[in-house]
């Protein structure tokens, strides 16, 4: 079974600062792997281990800053995948989910022979939870989200889907695109050995000359602004003395 996991570099939220006009300053934000993508990579590796297939392939769409960064490439490849394919162009920075899915679809088609594509629940930054569903339909593969368990069954998969009020157990014909939940597994933390080995794994970067890039969609972002913050009193008692706890209890009683 040839497995692909989709992965995205996203800014570290802790490093995002807010400008006086409420817009975001991402310039100091380090890039990291989207947290939900780690579950997709882990699910791909576990499935590969269970079926004895070749190591899964990672596919990512983004800018040079996010993809031609050796440290990030190593972080991506140190979690059990065998190769990384990137669709890179600096115009792909703020594209909508449809454009992202279109570029992923082009890369997956070019890689060829892919049986299973795994996506995380949503990207770590925009989190529209749409790239997986759009990609599945673009590739015309079996298309499911909310997947919380994947078990190989011959040339098919048995998939559990965790919905709001019910669980579905489904038999899925390949090829398929499955978007997995963030609790499908606990992603492994790579050790130094894996990080060193990751530096030797093949990395392929495709740009506009290699693929027909989709650079814009039908959705225009008008603004991205920090929400107004409620004023908080910030009255903090330092220390868990009997007196402080009594004071807090009195305060609480007033707001109850």
């Amino acid at each position, binding site marked *: 079974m040839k497995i692909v996991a989709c992965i995205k570099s996203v800014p570290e939220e802790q490093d995002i600062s807010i400008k006086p006009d409420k817009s975001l300053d991402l310039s100091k934000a380090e890039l990291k792997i989207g947290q*939900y993508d780690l579950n997709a990579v882990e699910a791909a590796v576990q499935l590969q281990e269970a079926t004895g297939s070749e190591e899964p392939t990672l596919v990512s769409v983004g800018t040079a800053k996010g993809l031609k960064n050796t440290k990030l490439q190593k972080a991506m490849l140190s979690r059990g995948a065998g190769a990384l394919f990137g669709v890179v162009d600096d115009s792909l920075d703020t594209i909508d989910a449809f454009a992202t899915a279109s570029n992923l679809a082009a890369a997956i088609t070019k890689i060829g022979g892919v049986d299973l594509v795994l996506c995380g629940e949503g990207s770590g930054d925009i989190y529209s939870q*749409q790239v997986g569903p759009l990609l599945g339909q673009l590739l015309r593969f079996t298309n499911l989200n909310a997947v919380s368990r994947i078990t190989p069954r011959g040339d098919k998969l048995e998939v559990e889907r965790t919905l709001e009020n019910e669980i*579905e*157990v489904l038999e899925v014909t390949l090829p398929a695109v499955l978007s997995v939940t963030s609790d499908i597994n606990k992603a492994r933390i790579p050790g130094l050995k894996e990080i060193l080995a990751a530096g030797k794994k093949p990395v392929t970067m495709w740009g506009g000359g290699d693929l027909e890039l989709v650079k814009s*969609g*039908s959705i225009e972002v008008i603004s991205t*602004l920090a929400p107004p913050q409620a004023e908080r009193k910030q009255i903090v008692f330092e220390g868990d003395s009997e007196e402080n706890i009594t004071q807090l209890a009195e305060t609480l009683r007033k707001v109850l």
Partner: protein
Amino acid sequence: MSKLAKVFVIAEHNDAMKELAYGAAQLGENTALIWAGEPRQAGGTDTVYYLGELSDEHILEHYSPTIINLIKTEQPNLVLVESSRKGRLMAGMIATALGTSVLADATEISIDDGVVSKRMVYGGAAFSTERSTAPTTVATVSAGVFEAADTGKAANLVEVPFTAPAPSIKCLERKIKVGESVNLRAAKRIVAVGRGFTAPEELKLAEQLAAAIGAEVGCTRPIAEEEKWMDKARYIGVSGVMAKPELYIGIGISGQVQHMVGVSSARTIIAINSDKNAMIFQQCDYGIVGDLKTVLPALTAKLGK
């Protein structure tokens, strides 16, 4: 605000159906609901396009070619989709078939030179305002954006002929989810626990406080998804519950934006944390720097009286 000519609704749960039907009536002249399941429950729009029953044989996904055909034929200006898991998948499939994207998880939606929506991005650090100018815009709409008010519309039921899907998904079993049914979104008081709790046995300290003040217990993502000490229904934050309590008490919670955004509208925020530098102290009304194992039993004893 000008109205669109034709707005469709796709929902799978009754409460969302009512909210979106009312929303559709605000945004559009002519409204229709696309519905699978019990036909008597459908309504609130000018037309109900009835797909058929839901069963192991026909889960909602099996109706996707039928739904896509219907939308391509009817060409509504806007399709409002419940942002349930199945709704998100359906929205993505419809949008792809129309060659467009989805206005995802809208927390506000209006008509202004296209369809304009607002949604949370960067883990709650910001809200993005987006405009779709597609001939048919597909939007998933968060719970509570529209009220579940009566539209006064008496629906005309139209049965839609079934288009068979590719036989790629076979439903083996559907079961009711085991786990608690807790609705934190409606809770007035919430006591939430985070990584400051080092063992599951310590959770009872928070549960006892919650019981003393009539609060529900919630938690951060790691407690539900990594430690699995609590049901996912209790997890507050961007990818979990967005709550609107009057009182929120965060215990052993550092105060990361992804969690705090889920309670940021609380009238009063109280923090209990042993680390005086924890970010939550800058976002609280009242706080105490102390060991939860000391603070919680004492607080519970004082408030329980």
